[in-house]
């Protein structure tokens, strides 16, 4: 499991964990992100059961376990949060922020200790120490209840499955050539994302944000101009293609 520092200033840091070369072959590679503030930490989309040990090992190289007081699950998928039953043992006092519509479903992963803080459809703010984070609605992209995390100070958008690419475990961390990268993400977006209307609604909302880095849950991170390139490409893309062919 690789660890990459994405942003650091006096108040907080963004760390990425991913490219786990010890995972079994048929499990999709995932990126996990952590925001570390002065006294707390937020772990985002902490991953599946199979990833738990590698993730906990990586995380405690950065912060003590009891500093992780917040978890975020963008949606209900197993690669996002099926490790919950184990984090529930490791971080019994943590709070999980996740879409309200998935509470009854996500609890099936096992949650006896952690507190569930539902995120309403319109999103909400989360202040950790002096850091302000915003849960941005990204419904139907791909999950019907889905959020991104935006940090206005770091200018980072954790975009979940939006911007995701299916590629090898040794892929670079950042998108280098956007046009070349399209092939790796086109099918993912066309097949997994069901709604052009939802997609365009999200693009409109995200264009208003000041973003230096867009961090998806699979594949590479978009930096600088590649963020705008992605938004333009995504806006023009026809999604929900499985229904078109029917």
């Amino acid at each position, binding site marked *: 499991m690789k660890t990459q520092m994405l942003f650091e200033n006096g108040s907080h840091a963004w760390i990425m964990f991913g490219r786990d070369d010890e995972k079994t072959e048929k499990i999709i590679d995932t990126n996990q992100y952590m925001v570390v503030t002065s006294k707390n930490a937020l772990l985002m989309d902490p991953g599946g059961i199979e990833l*738990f*040990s*590698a993730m*906990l*090992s*990586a995380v*405690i*190289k*950065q*912060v*003590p*376990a*009891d*500093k992780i007081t917040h978890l975020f699950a963008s949606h209900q998928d197993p690669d996002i949060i099926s490790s919950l*039953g*184990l984090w529930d*043992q*490791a*971080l*019994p006092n943590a709070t999980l922020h996740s879409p309200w519509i998935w509470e009854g479903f996500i609890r099936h992963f*096992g949650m006896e200790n952690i507190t569930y803080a539902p995120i309403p459809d319109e999103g909400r703010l989360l202040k950790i120490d002096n850091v302000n984070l915003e849960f941005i609605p990204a419904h139907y992209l791909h999950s019907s209840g889905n959020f991104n995390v935006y940090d206005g100070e770091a200018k980072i958008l954790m975009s979940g499955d939006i911007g995701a690419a299916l590629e090898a475990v040794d892929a670079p961390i950042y998108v280098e050539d956007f046009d070349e990268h399209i092939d790796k993400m086109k099918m993912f977006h066309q097949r997994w994302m069901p709604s052009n209307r939802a997609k365009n609604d999200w693009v409109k909302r995200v264009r208003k944000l000041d973003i230096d880095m867009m961090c998806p849950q699979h594949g590479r991170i978009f930096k600088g101009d590649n963020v705008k390139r992605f938004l333009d490409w995504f806006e023009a893309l026809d999604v929900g293609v499985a229904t078109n062919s029917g």
Partner: protein
Amino acid sequence: MTDPNNNYFVSVAEIAAKLDQTTLISQQLSLTASNARAVALRAGEKAAGIRPLTDFIDRLAEITILSSKKINALAVILSKTSVKKVRADNAIERFNAVYKSGKEAKYIDSIDKQHQSCKLEQEQLEATYRRQINQLSIELKVLSSELRNAIILATLSRVEASQSGAQYQDALINVADNVEGAAAKIKEHIKYSQHKVSILEECVTLE
């Protein structure tokens, strides 16, 4: 805990399912007692001996229903405990992997408290599991001994049937067959469950 075929919680669930069927068969015994009472009423003096037997069949059905419901409830609780135990074992296993792979981690000590807490929970579940499996074993023995009466009742019903005359003989033989059949099926389930429980007990002892 060593588990039979690496899936002891599946074995426990199978016991619970088998004993659930036992409850249904016991309810059929109760129906047999009602039928026997109806035959005895119609036969009058010709089947006077069957009347007290119907009370015994009723009593047997009642005991069997209560006992099998109790055992079934115990098996369901045991099943839940064993699943919790599997999850606790799983968590400990993952923590151990972290200790192995992350021994150089700066904050490795920060997971000690939760690791200890998981181990404590695992020990408590282990003790609960042992206690529950022992209780299940005892209750299965109790039900098994109650069923010995079923054979006696079936034999006595046959004797009464032979003395009741041709008109009621078939109906009373049917009562005897039903008692015997239900008892045999329940015994089969108990035997199956006792076998599974003995394997689980053996695994707990080997631990």
